[in-house]
């Protein structure tokens, strides 16, 4: 498998506080990696460093073997798409206009651009809302619009920061199935998730962060174990077998 993105000894600190320390991870094409961990573990910071928003204080980030800092903004946007947690848009653009912005990093090709925007609107079930003012959308609809824009960007690397946080059950599942399909088609996906069962159900690999360090890294079954989760989350849990799928299921207990 080819490594799409690599973090080498990455560290980030703010004042005396270390937000990330000694993070070394490689992400392969064709896989979905879920970043999980308690609040403040450094998930979003890790994603910000990995997508080039935040420079690392130490270590480096390599995209296809080249340092991230060497990429021009446009070239980078052709390689990786990012879905941030905030979806605020400043003016009353329509849903389809925002989704079409996902095509801006690429050379204009009207027919292809159009087909990709349509496909993204279909995948996120936004066809009925396509002319709606984005400022009038609910939180979940806004998140789906951003996700559709990320899909339209058609990049080999996707970084998603809690794409399912505001979504209902059906759209959580649909979103992660789209993510899965992209990876099966060869994309490398890194996704921050809070819901361990969504991570278990759709990711090939889970990276569990604890206070800025990698606490566990492996298949869902290897990472989601009762002792590890109890220690990192300080919460009693039971890990069972999912009744219908061959994945672990995490349930909170008293």
């Amino acid at each position: 498998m080819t490594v799409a993105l690599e973090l080498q000894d990455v560290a980030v600190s703010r004042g005396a506080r270390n937000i990330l320390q000694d993070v070394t991870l490689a992400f392969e094409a064709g896989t979905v990696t879920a970043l999980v961990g308690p609040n403040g573990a450094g998930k979003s910071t890790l994603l910000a460093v990995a997508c080039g928003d935040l420079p690392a204080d130490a270590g480096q980030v390599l995209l296809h073997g080249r340092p991230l800092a060497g990429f021009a903004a446009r070239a980078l946007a052709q390689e990786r798409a990012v879905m941030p947690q905030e979806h605020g848009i400043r003016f009353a653009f329509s849903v389809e206009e925002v989704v079409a912005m996902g095509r801006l990093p690429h050379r204009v090709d009207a027919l292809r651009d159009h087909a990709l925007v349509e496909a993204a609107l279909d995948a996120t079930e936004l066809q009925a809302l396509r002319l709606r003012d984005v400022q009038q959308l609910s939180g979940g609809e806004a998140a789906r619009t951003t996700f559709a824009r990320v899909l339209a960007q058609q990049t080999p690397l996707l970084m998603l920061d809690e794409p399912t946080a505001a979504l209902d059950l059906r759209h959580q599942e649909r979103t992660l199935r789209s993510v899965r399909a992209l990876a099966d088609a060869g994309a490398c996906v890194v996704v921050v998730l809070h819901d361990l069962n969504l991570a278990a159900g759709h990711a090939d690999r889970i990276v569990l962060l604890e206070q800025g360090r990698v606490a566990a890294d492996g298949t869902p079954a290897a990472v989601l174990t009762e002792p590890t989760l109890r220690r990192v989350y300080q919460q009693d849990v039971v890990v069972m077998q999912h009744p219908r799928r061959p994945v672990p299921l995490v349930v909170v207990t008293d």
Partner: protein
Amino acid sequence: MSPSASRSFLRRRRRGQWMLALSAMLLLLAMLASFAVGPLRLPPLEVLQAVGVKLGLVDPAAVSSRDLAVVWQLRIPRALLGAMVGAALAMAGASLQGLFGNPLADPGIVGVSQGAALGAVAAIVLGAASIGGWMIPLAAFAGGALAISLTYLLARPGRATGNATLLLVGIAMAALCSALIGFLTYIATESQLQSLVFWQLGSLASADWRDVLAVAPLFLLGAVACLHLAVPLDMLALGERQAQHLGLDVPRTRRQLVAFSALLVGAAVAFAGSIGFVGLVVPHVARMLVGPGHRWMLPLSGLLGAVLVVVADTAARTLDPPSEIPLGLFSASLGAPFFLWLVLQQRRKGHS
């Protein structure tokens, strides 16, 4: 290709084209009317004849030399200057709103106009204007650019900053510039004072062909540059971080927006003084007509800004002859209530 999508795209484009054509016609009519109207009222035919004489198409004997002078020396340059000033302020307003991600940003509100006025006043009082007439617009540009940069640094669009920060920083910036203008006025000589009063009011009364020729290149450069930034401005609506994710070089775009809006505001302020609220009202109206996409909204703002200032200036000089109502007074009495309405609307939407 699904028909609904191409239809909505085509509809938007057709609407944009229609609105541009319509407002261009409106501008033409407003300018022709302003050539004819004033203390000396001329029939439209005579106005056209006067223009024809200058272009060598009509026999000079057809028009009296007094009418010719009024139309050619006073009204035409004044209308042309007004149109450029209005377009410049409206396009600068639209660009600043995109840069700050805030529909309340206006050259007067974020302190750019005051910065430009400070630059112009400083050039006059400190004697730089004697080097050459071009020093005044240059100083206005520098003052405007400095003021926007400062406001931007202090009220950068981000997570924590809402309207309040931008407006407060704008007020502080305007107050600082006003204080410095006050100081310069205090140390100014008698003859300098006379040209300074001009900046306090905002007026096109002294417009002549020299002004028109001096503003034209600055205006054209700023306007064309802003139109080229239409797509980057659309991307900035997603927020700076997401614009960067879509491949926009945000720091570079920011510098360009600051420079070109300062150029437009500097050109307008150097030759017409402070005319407030054009940059606030016009982009808002343009957005209501063709939507927020800058490809149509920016040029439409330019045309509508030109119409607004030409009409307002014509009214200012004809309502109470022979004296003139200062244009700045006009635009403020129109713009201030609109601004209040906009702030209250924003608050209802929850952007405090």
